[in-house]
């Protein structure tokens, strides 16, 4: 077949890239080879637009066992135990086919973890959708049309069910994450799946092909025509014909994955495996050439031997298939039989399809012919690298205050004087889908299987125990897309800071980071600039917290019909709780406990949830994070927790202090809701802020709400003072009301129960009731 411009176009290969392919090959590639190049050089697999920037991230640390470049990052948590963890996107497939797209996203990340020899013990996910709430922001704005809302709900319901069905059947608890909503995600939902596994240090496996002549064994599900060009699809923006790409989405089988997990772990223990790699994006192609490249060897495989689900598949189709639940193994010589028996016992295919060769090449045979022969390096190290043009844009500096005050006075004119207007605003905030209870989501996930979940979903970070030790692991996924949109560098710094703060509030020391960088088209200079800024912001914050980046994933082209997502760099932070007894939650415990606020509140209303809820706008100056102040606040919190002085700790972020206080009051498992009497007078003085709106709802970073027994107050104050952290007593736990006053003025007065009801019912009322039919 002659390679025409049209064919190159279909493969997303530019004429310049094609010239480079010919150069590297020393000849024209055949059609199969072109297909192989197209997936390996796709943005998704090659990181061609991001690699020059990713180098700037810190990737070293004392606890680090494996940094970026393998299937997952690994850190040492002591006593010979290591944690493998990673986050990956499955955005494009989840838009085209929400259920299968999300399910296979979970399947892919779980395989990344157990490929390293680790048993997955926790999963989380970071999800972003378009608005699911029909609303009239104010009379002058048009009502959100119901069609996109219905589609967003359908996407969300499908994604959540897909994640649940896969993770639940596989048997990994899905214990946390985040769900956020914004218009920009309407046609570009983000589905980022995180998984974490435990492995003994000496039992870690790598994706390397070593030992010339060693057998290459294919294990797991059969190869079909599903998912062909999945990686290429995920490397381009969508247009109105996106739904025609449905056949490129893979279909997941969690049962097969569960069998694969058990069989792989058993085979690893048997000593029969030299190297192992899962067939994820670009399937057989990427697994074979990457294993060869890492091991400094090559692989020769015969496609006639590959277990196939369909007949008449071409070499091209087999090499590009993204059928799920498959692995490639290099076996130790003489152990092939033993290895295959283990897989057969689990009713899985296991077939020798080739062997390791000395030439650093990927050689593919099919029906007695040489179907492809490509140097590994041409597919991996020699893939194109682009330092794409960047175009800075002005970061927002506007004061959001006037818009907010106008909206508040407008609201004031519409409602009674009692209770004060801020009570109604707080009710609206906790009922906004971004801040509302995510129970509707996590109730559909088995979050308790494996009996390690020591903090049920809903607190600042998810926490599991490590049964064999006295340690617990805390983990959190965070990103504020609005901040990143208005000021990418600052947004990235804050995503890291908030993720660290969340694990600290749970009693953990932040250890390491995985990230999932979701962006629009890298071919747009302003997107590329935002990406570069994000990397610098993230690098600076990760250095400050001493949390190296262990890997992750870049997802570009989250763009449909010319509209892209906000820069959304999701941070997955892993924290270690050295002693399980230090595990702390956000919920107020006992009446009579003192409530303390660490840190100061500033006039940080730009890009806030308040602005969005009151005006529907995303604008204004993003709060400025001082990394030294942030570190000091976190250190005070952790020290006070470790000294046993603290009953609850809660990060104060989206929605500000008022929302954080309400969340601490709400009921949790076996703990009824409890009220709090708050007086912000002292805090207002210490913060030099005399503004009720900002005191209640500003999203100033570096703040933590603590509650403690009165007798521990002096000691906590001491710790704060030594660290130079502002520490204000702001109230006391008790009663059934949340009341807030400042300088004698009543700001908020509400029964916690009614507030909690609004918070709990927000998602179900939007997602469970049938869509109202449009009039006419």
């Amino acid at each position, binding site marked *: 077949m002659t390679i025409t411009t049209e064919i190159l176009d279909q493969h997303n290969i530019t004429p310049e890239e094609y010239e480079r392919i010919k150069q590297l090959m020393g000849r024209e590639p055949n059609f199969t080879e072109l297909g192989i190049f197209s997936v390996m050089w796709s943005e998704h697999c090659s990181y061609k637009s991001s690699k020059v920037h990713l180098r700037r991230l810190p990737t070293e640390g004392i606890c680090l066992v494996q940094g970026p470049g393998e299937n997952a990052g690994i850190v040492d948590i002591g006593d010979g135990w290591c944690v493998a963890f990673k986050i990956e996107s499955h955005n494009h497939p989840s838009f085209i086919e929400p259920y299968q797209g999300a399910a296979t996203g979970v399947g892919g990340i779980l395989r990344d973890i157990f490929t390293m020899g680790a048993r997955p013990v926790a999963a989380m996910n970071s999800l972003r959708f378009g608005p699911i709430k029909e609303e009239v922001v104010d009379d002058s704005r048009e009502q959100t049309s119901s069609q996109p809302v219905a589609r967003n709900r359908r996407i969300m319901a499908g994604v959540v*069910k897909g994640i649940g069905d896969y993770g639940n059947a*596989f048997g990994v608890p899905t214990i946390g994450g985040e769900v956020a909503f914004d218009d920009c995600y309407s046609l570009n939902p983000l589905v980022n799946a995180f998984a974490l596994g435990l492995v003994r240090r000496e039992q870690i496996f790598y994706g390397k092909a070593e030992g010339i002549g060693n057998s290459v064994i294919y294990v797991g599900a059969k190869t079909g025509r599903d998912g062909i060009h999945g990686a290429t699809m995920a490397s381009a923006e969508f247009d109105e014909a996106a739904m025609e790409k449905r056949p490129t989405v893979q279909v997941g089988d969690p049962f097969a994955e*569960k069998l694969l997990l058990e069989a792989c772990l058993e085979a690893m223990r048997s000593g029969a495996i030299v190297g192992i790699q899962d067939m994820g994006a670009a399937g057989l192609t990427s697994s074979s050439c990457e294993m060869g490249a890492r091991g400094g060897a090559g692989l020769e495989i015969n496609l006639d031997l590959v277990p196939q689900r369909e007949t008449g598949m071409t070499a091209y189709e087999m090499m590009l298939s993204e059928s799920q639940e498959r692995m490639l193994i290099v076996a130790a010589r003489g152990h092939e039989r033993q290895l295959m028996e283990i897989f057969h016992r689990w009713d899985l295919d296991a077939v020798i399809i080739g062997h390791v060769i000395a030439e650093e090449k990927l050689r593919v045979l099919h029906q007695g012919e040489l179907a492809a022969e490509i140097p590994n390096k041409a597919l991996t190290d020699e893939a194109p690298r682009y330092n794409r043009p960047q175009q800075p844009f002005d970061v927002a500096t506007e004061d959001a205050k006037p818009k907010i005050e106008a909206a508040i006075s407008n609201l004031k004119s519409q409602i009674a004087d009692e209770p004060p207007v801020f009570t109604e605003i707080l009710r609206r905030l906790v009922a906004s889908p971004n801040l509302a209870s995510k129970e509707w989501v996590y*109730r*559909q996930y*088995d979050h*308790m299987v*494996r*009996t390690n979940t*020591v903090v049920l979903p809903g607190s600042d970070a998810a926490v599991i125990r490590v049964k064999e030790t006295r340690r617990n692991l805390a983990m959190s996924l965070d990103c504020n897309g609005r901040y990143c949109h208005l000021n990418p560098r600052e947004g990235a710094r804050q995503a890291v800071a908030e993720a660290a703060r969340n694990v600290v509030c749970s009693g953990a020391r932040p250890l390491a980071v995985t990230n999932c960088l979701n962006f629009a088209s890298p071919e747009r200079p302003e997107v590329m600039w935002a990406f570069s800024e994000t990397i610098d912001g993230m690098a600076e914050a990760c250095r400050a917290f001493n949390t190296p980046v262990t890997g992750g994933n870049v997802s570009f082209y989250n763009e449909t019909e010319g509209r892209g997502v906000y820069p959304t760099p999701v941070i997955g932070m892993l924290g270690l709780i050295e002693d399980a007894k230090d595990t702390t939650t956000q919920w107020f415990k006992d009446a009579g406990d003192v409530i303390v606020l660490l840190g100061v509140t500033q006039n940080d209303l730009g890009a806030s949830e308040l602005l969005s809820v009151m005006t529907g706008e995303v604008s204004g100056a993003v709060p400025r994070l001082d990394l030294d102040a942030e570190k000091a606040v976190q250190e005070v919190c952790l020290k006070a927790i470790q000294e046993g002085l603290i009953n609850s700790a809660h990060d104060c972020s989206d929605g500000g202090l008022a929302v954080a206080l309400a969340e601490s009051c709400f009921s949790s498992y076996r703990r009824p809701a409890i009220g709090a009497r708050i007086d912000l007078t002292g805090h207002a003085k210490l913060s030099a802020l005399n503004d009720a709106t900002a005191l209640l709802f500003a999203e100033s970073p570096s703040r933590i709400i603590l509650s403690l027994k009165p007798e521990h107050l002096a000691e906590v104050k001491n710790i704060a003072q030594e660290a130079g952290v502002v520490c204000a007593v702001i109230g006391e736990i008790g009663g059934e009301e949340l009341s807030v006053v400042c300088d004698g003025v009543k700001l908020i007065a509400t029964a916690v129960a009614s507030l909690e009801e609004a918070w709990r019912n927000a998602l179900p009322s939007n997602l469970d009731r049938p869509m109202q039919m449009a009039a006419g």
Partner: protein
Amino acid sequence: MKFGVVIFPGSNCDHDAYHVVSKVIGQPVDFIWHKDEEIDRYDAIILPGGFSYGDYLRTGAIARFSPVMKALKDFVRDGGLALGICNGFQILCEAGLLPGALLRNRSLKYVCEHVNIRVERADTPFTRGYRQGQVLSIPVAHGEGNYFCDAATLAELESQNRIIFRYCDASGAVTDESNPNGSINSIAGITNREGNVLGMMPHPERASESALGCKDGRALFLSMAESLREMIKLRA
């Protein structure tokens, strides 16, 4: 005394059941592969939760054909104790060791949360450590836990006092709101006529340690151990 925890392809609460028996109540326990046909050396068998065979045809519908299930019938006939949790309960029903079936939840959604169940009988080998009427907080995690049987079977279950647990509210009242899946008569767990087979949808192994926030399930395993001790003594 020896417990056995059966592993079907797709079981995923096998390690949890093993952990609670070995570490929490400190009794000897083995895993049993579903193809094993020799289970005489055990005194109690646990069919754990999970998604045996992916639950693809119908929950438990394929697992019932596993060789171990034939052996389990003999084991139960000879008086051994068998506990089916969640998917284990579904398999026991499919295998005919317990009556009825588990349908899709009324909400059509998977549900994972702590629920309250009321102990209807405290005189069984599984519940002797509880008080009758005691309310337990135990998690459920299932998509198909909606217990159903025909009217005659239901009448028989009720009249023979074979309903061991019912979903209830925190005060012990059996209400429709406290029924997480739509089960008929709020049934959460039942036994066979002889009383040596218990099937239940809630997961007591997930509520047996204070580290997990609740120990209400522990007495179920302790009850089994206590009963086995007596049975072994009688045999000797």
